[in-house]
């Protein structure tokens, strides 16, 4: 799994590539938490290159979005492949996370 964070104004686009599983989810969680604790509370997670996630990945996203919202920000998801989306929907995450078709749309959702 590879994680890249790119600023877009006051939003950070987090690009993840590869599998988010029980072994890699901890790296994802610690990377996101460090970013949020440093004040980067507006996040867009680009999932276009994530072909697999288990519940371990969902726990990392849940912990991060809770902390980001507590600090006045949010974590929004973009460009999700069908099987990963199925995991999110069956886990009830589609109702608590904002999901967008494209990264640009998710970034723009923070305006206004």
């Amino acid at each position, binding site marked *: 799994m590879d994680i890249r964070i790119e600023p877009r104004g006051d939003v950070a686009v987090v690009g993840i590539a590869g599998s988010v599983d029980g072994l890699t989810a901890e790296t994802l969680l610690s990377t996101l938490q460090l970013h949020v604790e440093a004040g980067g509370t507006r996040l867009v997670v680009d999932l276009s290159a994530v072909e697999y996630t288990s519940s371990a990945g969902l726990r990392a996203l849940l912990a991060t979005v809770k902390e980001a*919202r507590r600090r006045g920000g949010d974590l929004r998801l973009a460009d999700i492949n069908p*099987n990963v989306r199925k995991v999110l929907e*069956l886990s009830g995450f589609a109702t608590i996370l904002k999901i967008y078709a494209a990264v640009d749309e998710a970034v723009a959702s923070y305006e206004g």
Partner: protein
Amino acid sequence: MTRRSPAVGVRVFRATAMTDLPGLLAFVDTACDAFSADEDVRFAMRLAVEEVFANILEHGYRGNGPVEATVDGGPRCVRVCLRDQAPPFDPADAPAPDLRSPLEERDPGGLGWHLVRQFVDELEHRPAPGGGNTYTLVKQLPARAPDP
């Protein structure tokens, strides 16, 4: 009856810790390839095997311990068995996941077994007479047109 099987030497995989997960998932991929499973079946089996394995380590052993994975199948299904030596645990007794609470109250516990049930067609648990558990996961393969 002749069954198609994965390449010689990869029918059994032994894992003891989360660091073995990449090997275990590669083993599942190889099994799915051997049975000509499509991407959706492969995804479902990977997810189900990881969730069962993670539960065995976290709740069964509360740490590391031996887990043996074997594969079987045919033209209609892929079957993975995971055997452990942990205290008996029937997934029917797992707590129901919280799928509806607001974000602030959402507890991610119980999601693993819930996802297993959603992604595979059969989940069977058998306690072993001498201790331990066998979890059997079956995923049906989509019907294919017969060979010409």
